[in-house]
């Protein structure tokens, strides 16, 4: 039993390695064309798909076993050490698996969605000649994500953190013949690196302060020396700032990158260049929630830095409303869902900001189900429509794709937070906690969140109605070929659909602090979560009402009177342009960061390196040469080396002289 977590973490790695081994198998005759490979399903591809999918499905089964035994079986949290990775003298890093409610929840989320996505990909990537590579990356990603969540220390966490980042990079750029995919992949990696650099400095601060990066050591010291640690300060630009706050803030910046919070979100919409199953697994359900998980894992630290929690709350709220406004006007079905993810992650962060970590984790879990469902549903549409992603070239698809249609409805209802679907319970709890945060400081956050809830319903159902209702708006030839997806695609959507419907109801104990059995710590000074039970009725039901209004509005605008949105867009030209152009953040970065960096790099090379430093060097060399030519008049030989032998002799002589003088 204690080794189950270890096994379930390593299974995807073994699957990926076994799949990778097939590359060592000599291919024999060169494959003549891709068409032939498709017809004769390659045995190596089959083996790789079997090992990866099989191992991840098995991991999912084990994950549920671990999770249920912890929850219902009364099992205790466990910690297994594997081996020492780094022994840097005074401190060590040991690989291992820390399995408490927090990591067990993530095991279930990660392994379940990953298993569904693996199976789904067998159908979705059927036509791709390099699907073997795809499956290996998917399994490697799953392994890295499990390493991240099971880590007993921040260094192993960082291994998983960067590991999921690189798998994301490889999968976004999976179709590497597409220039846009390569650009998006690189953008994702670099933006995340910016965040990671901040996080690294945060880790260094923690290491310096605690002498260890193991959670147990850090939390132990936080509990034992609370007052001393809270008073610790670090000099920064002439000011003294609290060390803990600085570290917490830097780590939050790292989390902002991975979880696409406003300012560091720009990579996520572009990441939709990757195949749709990737978007479902990595850019909706798991990797992007790593930041949320990390802050929950570090709740004992964040509880001591309330100023940072305020920042977290505001950043989360800003992201929630920003992404919701952008989601309203995008035309690419995947980008709308991507902005929706961004917005929902904002909710999770502002839950953390008001110390409602359990609510954040609860929403993380329900969101994983319904958002993965929405992405896979979108994938099913795209698959049926021969890679058409623009919702303005769809319409009336409900008769063609009835099962997908139902799934999209379920996912969108959960997203909009309509009871009894999953999102209702978790989103409701988040908003209530924000409303009831002690002192009422977070009430603006609540109002922003409630408004975003309405926008969520509008953009969520905009997709459903544009794609499935009304008249078809695209190429008639595409429609005549459109067909419901095969069961290998629809099948894996069923568990996720069940989750989107039931997860909120069944997992509602997750919304209480007690359920987490100490994996999450909340200071009694800011216990918004308990106070949330006493939310006044108007604050409790307002978001629901707004969401219902949103759905109605969406029906009116995008199913019934489709010409109204166009008129609205021309009337509200400026807000429309801002939303359509994603608040011009990319343009701003291009102008303020990307181009200056490029110019600076070129300038440093040309003017500092070549003309400046090397200019001096060559100048000195020329001067020496001229002096040498002058001296050469008296010499018979003129080989450069001889001159240097003499210089050397001179220096040796001087050295000896110095010796005699000083000695």
């Amino acid at each position, binding site marked *: 039993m204690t080794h189950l977590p270890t096994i379930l973490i390593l299974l995807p790695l073994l699957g990926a390695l076994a799949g990778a081994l097939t590359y060592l198998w000599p291919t024999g005759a060169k494959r003549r064309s891709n068409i032939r490979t498709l017809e004769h399903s390659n045995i190596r591809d089959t083996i790789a798909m079997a090992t990866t999918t099989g191992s991840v499905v098995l991991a999912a089964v084990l994950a549920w076993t671990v999770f249920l035994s912890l929850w219902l079986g009364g099992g205790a949290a466990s910690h297994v050490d594997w081996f020492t990775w*780094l022994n840097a*003298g005074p401190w060590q890093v040991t690989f291992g698996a820390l399995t408490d409610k927090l990591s067990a929840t993530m095991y279930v989320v990660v392994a379940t969605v990953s298993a569904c996505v693996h199976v789904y990909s067998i159908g979705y990537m059927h036509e791709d000649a390099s699907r073997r590579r795809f499956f290996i990356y998917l399994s490697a990603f799953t392994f890295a994500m499990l390493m991240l969540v099971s880590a007993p220390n921040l260094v192993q966490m960082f291994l998983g953190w960067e590991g999921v980042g690189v798998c994301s*990079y490889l999968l976004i750029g999976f179709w590497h013949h597409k220039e846009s995919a390569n650009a998006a992949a690189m953008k994702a990696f670099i933006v995340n690196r910016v965040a990671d650099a901040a996080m690294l400095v945060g880790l260094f601060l923690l*290491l310096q*302060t605690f002498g260890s990066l193991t959670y147990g050591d850090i939390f132990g010291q936080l509990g034992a020396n609370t007052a001393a640690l809270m*008073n610790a300060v670090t000099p920064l630009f002439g000011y003294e700032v609290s060390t803990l706050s600085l570290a917490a803030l830097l780590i939050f910046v790292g989390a902002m990158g991975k979880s696409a919070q406003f300012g560091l979100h720009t990579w996520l919409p572009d990441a939709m260049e990757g195949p749709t199953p990737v978007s479902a697994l990595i850019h909706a359900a798991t990797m992007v929630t790593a930041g949320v998980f990390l802050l929950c894992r570090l709740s004992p630290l964040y509880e001591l830095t309330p100023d940072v929690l305020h920042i977290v709350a505001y950043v989360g709220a800003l992201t929630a409303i920003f992404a919701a406004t952008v989601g309203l006007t995008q035309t690419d079905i995947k980008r709308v869902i991507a902005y929706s993810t961004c917005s929902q992650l904002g909710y999770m962060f502002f839950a953390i900001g008001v110390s409602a970590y359990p609510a954040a984790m609860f929403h993380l879990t329900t969101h994983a189900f319904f958002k993965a469902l929405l992405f896979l549903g979108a994938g099913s549409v795209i698959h049926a429509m021969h890679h058409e992603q623009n919702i303005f070239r769809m319409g009336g698809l409900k008769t063609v794709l009835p099962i997908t249609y139902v799934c999209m409805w379920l996912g969108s209802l959960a997203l909009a937070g309509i009871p009894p679907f999953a999102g209702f319970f978790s989103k409701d709890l988040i908003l209530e906690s924000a409303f009831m945060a002690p002192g009422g400081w977070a009430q603006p956050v609540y109002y922003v969140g409630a408004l975003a809830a309405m926008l969520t319903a509008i953009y969520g159902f905009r997709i459903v109605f544009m794609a499935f209702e009304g008249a078809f708006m695209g190429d008639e030839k595409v429609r005549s070929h459109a067909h419901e997806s095969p069961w290998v695609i629809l099948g894996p959507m069923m568990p996720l659909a069940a989750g989107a419907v039931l997860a909120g109801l069944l997992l509602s104990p997750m919304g209480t602090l007690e359920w987490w059995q100490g994996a999450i710590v909340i200071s009694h000074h800011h216990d918004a979560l308990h106070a949330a039970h006493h939310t006044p009725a108007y604050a409790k039901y307002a978001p629901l009402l707004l969401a219902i209004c949103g759905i109605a509005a969406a029906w009116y605008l995008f199913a019934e009177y489709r010409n109204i949105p166009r008129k609205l867009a021309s009337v509200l030209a400026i807000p429309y342009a801002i939303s359509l152009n994603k608040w011009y953040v990319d343009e701003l970065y291009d102008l303020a960061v990307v181009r200056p*960096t490029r110019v600076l790099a070129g300038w440093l090379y*040309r003017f500092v390196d070549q003309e400046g430093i090397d200019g001096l060097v060559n100048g000195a060399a020329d001067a020496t040469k001229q002096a040498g030519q002058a001296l050469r008049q008296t010499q018979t030989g003129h080989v450069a080396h001889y001159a240097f032998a003499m210089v050397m002799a001179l220096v040796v002589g001087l050295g000896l002289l110095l010796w005699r003088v*000083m000695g």
Partner: protein
Amino acid sequence: MTFPLPPLTTLIFLPLLGALLTLLVSHPNAAQQAYNAKRTALFVSVVTLLLAAYVGWHFNPAQGGYQLMERKPWVPSFGLTYLLGVDGISLPLMLLTALLTPLCLLASWNLTDRPKYFFASFLALEAAVMGVFAALDFILFYVFWEAMLIPMFLIIGIWGGEKRVYAALKFFLYTFVGSVLMLVAILYLYAQAGTFDIPALTAALRENPALMSPLAAQLVFLAFFAAFAVKVPMWPFHTWLPDAHVQAPTAGSVILAGVLLKMGAYGFLRFSLPMLPEASAHFAPFIFVLSAIAVVYAALVAYAQTDIKKMIAYSSVSHMGLVTLALFAAPLGGGETALHGGLLVMLNHGIVSAGLFLAIGVVYERLHTRDLTKFGGLVVYMPRYAFVLMTLTLAAVALPGTNGFVGEFLSLAGSFPAAPVATAVATTGVIFGALYMLWLYRKMVFGTPSAFVEKHKRDLPDLGWRESLIFAPLIILVPLLGILPGLAMDMWRAPVEAMDMWRAPVEAMVATEHVTPTVIPAQAGTQSDGGGVHE
């Protein structure tokens, strides 16, 4: 089994003997002669590698100090001894040299211009480098240090690119000026302590700091600095490196980046820091600044390059900046963490940059260009190559799980307490480092094949057996040392722990001067409540 010959002497003179043998190879048929010479040289380098492995096997990491020492009188009237020995700091660098040399020879297999002389020069270079790392007599060290210049000068100057003579002279003069100053410092130290014996000299200087006035120690430090900073190379003494790399043949670049740059860091670690702890501490802030600049500046300049070899050359400057930062941070609060980190970056950079230069050599041999703008879509024709380059790229951007990460993480984490600002600046190097490496990969390998690549697709076979064999050890070492860095760290654990000895006097001085402790112990009521919980 005991080895019948003194192992370190053999390790130095076997390659030299091999160089002579290679020169003696003669055959009426020129092609046959070249082939025989190549085989001879390769054979000797492989035997050297086995011998190095033997030395590594018999090395006892638990035992501190130098091992396998050999002491013979050399020029007694001048106090010179032939003194050799290895410790955990020099051994990994010798192993690296022994590993890279056969790979370099294999990579030069298709050389047609006077191959006999090239292969002989290369073995002579290996001998000199081994000597540098094994020598424990200061003059002996100096002899090897200078001797190394000659074969390298020939390799760049004869077998290099279009501007080879300029590059070779620049390389030679730059390093030579630095090392001449070092010689003065060596002689001065001899004058003060009366010995060239490095362990004895270090002990003498440590036990009796009064041997030198602080000013004299600082001047000696600067003289050493001139030699080592050029060699590393530290910013702004680095401009010889891009030229040398671009003009050098592939094998020359590999050994230059893989081993020769490490000699500078080795010098700091072997001489400057333990012999001159106060002077080192005095100049450390200055070195932190130069190192942080090197990390960021060189990464940015690398990004500006269109010549792929130049790009990797600048990346070396960037990575070595991390080494100097960590080494000088070690006695000032960085401790064992920083020292482990610095040593790991040295070793790992030796593996990864060697691999990158080899990888660039592979495409240069096929397409005869280093112009990044001409490349694109190599993955279509060379998938195996794409895999190799991706592995090396990920190691270069220090992805956890690869060897690059452990060194980078420990260097930065270790340096942070000693130099928080410089370390924070250097940490942004992880952004720019990823920027140029991924840009390089994207332009070369991803995308659709460029017109140039398409035109030459017949010349683009994937990696063959010989090339796969070259990359195999490096590709295995990348994850191996990433997951089990202890394999390397345990080798130098004893000398790293012994660092306390040269840290002790420094700390006494530093405590009053440089370091402001970050964690101020709590004093009730005296601190602002900035980070306090809301009551």
